[in-house]
């Protein structure tokens, strides 16, 4: 007798094939979803800092300009993290004795910089330069999000290569006048933005064909 299998084997065979195919697709889809998720990119994940520094308070509340603290952003690759002296220029006068600012004071006393937790960490093979972006009219908000609404800082954008390329391929969607670079509240309709952006692309001599060359970011 050559009947080896129970009739249910037919259903079993088909179901298992379907499960394999669907399962493989789900697994690949899951991996893909994971690669773009906050677990992988760190977007919207609040970083704990030695001092609970609030960008929201300083920008929105006090009205400090970005460049007051990140003062090399227009001239060098790094935007610059303020030395303790910068903090103390105000905090020696106000809130000077709060427990919250104890690490700042001890940093000054011991002459040791505060060790902040990095929020944006580019890989070493990327040569990112803040100054060129600022000079050509990329607003802080384009990459860092509405920092003025962040009580504690987090990454607003994934900073993946595809994300960088998006702007390098279509810079006109993000450019603004240089005087508006640090503005957090500038809102333009998409048509206005495109018109403005195209104008600035010409004015600032931005060649988006060359912006996507490998050697622009990887040297």
């Amino acid at each position, binding site marked *: *007798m050559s*009947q*080896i*299998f*129970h*009739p249910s*084997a*037919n259903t079993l065979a*088909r179901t298992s094939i379907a499960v394999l195919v669907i399962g493989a697709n789900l697994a690949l889809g899951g991996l893909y979803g994971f690669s773009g998720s906050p677990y992988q990119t760190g977007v919207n994940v609040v970083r704990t800092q030695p001092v609970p520094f609030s960008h929201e308070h300083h920008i929105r509340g006090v009205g400090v300009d970005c460049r007051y603290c990140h003062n090399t952003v227009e001239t060098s690759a790094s935007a610059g993290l303020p030395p303790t002296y910068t903090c103390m220029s105000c905090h020696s006068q106000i809130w000077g004795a709060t427990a919250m600012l104890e690490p700042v004071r001890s940093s000054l006393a011991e002459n040791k910089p505060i060790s902040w937790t990095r929020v944006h960490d580019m890989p070493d093979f990327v040569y990112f330069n803040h100054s060129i972006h600022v000079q050509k009219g990329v607003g802080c908000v384009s990459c860092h999000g509405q920092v003025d609404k962040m009580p504690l800082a987090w990454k607003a954008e994934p900073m993946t290569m595809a994300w960088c*390329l998006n702007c390098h391929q279509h810079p006109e969607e993000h450019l603004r006048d240089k005087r508006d670079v640090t503005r957090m509240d500038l809102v333009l309709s998409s048509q206005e933005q495109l018109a403005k952006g195209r104008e600035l692309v010409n004015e600032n001599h931005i060649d988006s064909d060359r912006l996507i060359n490998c050697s622009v970011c990887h040297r």
Partner: protein
Amino acid sequence: MSHEAETETDAVHGVIAEFEHEADILAAAEAAYAAGYRKMDAYSPHPVDGLAEAMGFTKNRVPLIVLLGGLSGGATGFMMQWFSAVVHYPIDVGGRPLNSWPAFVPITFELTILFSAFASILGMLILNGLPKPYHPVFNAANFDSASSDRFFLCIESSDPMFETEGVKGFLEGFEPKSLSVVPVESDPGDREAEDS
């Protein structure tokens, strides 16, 4: 299968005749078709020329499926390359045009073949209703040798003209090596390898 088995425990799948030579089964199949039987199938250890045709089976959709598979493969291959090189990330590589179609030909070709090959095997298996590890015909006596050196012709009970004794008599006329009635459900005792 199972619902049939539930309704009638001793339901009959069909009557099967065993032959030793290709010529005999060809003659029997032709005669059965001529006699008006339509629901039947022949089983052989290797393909026999004209056997399927003798039972009135001529519609073969496999080539059409393969053609569609190939066309979709070629289109996928070229569009994938064109989209990524021209639309999504246009970049000048060594002065070659964005739409470097000569360079896109090899992959377009490979995907045409790949999709066609998938279409041919999937088309063949699906049209054949495989995989189907359980089939009533395996219940037939000596059916083991259908994959070695014997030829079987089964006239199935779903045929409107089917009537066990009549079909038996009909097949008897071709002097088969053996003749038996195939039950839909196997005798559990015989299912030696069932595992549960």
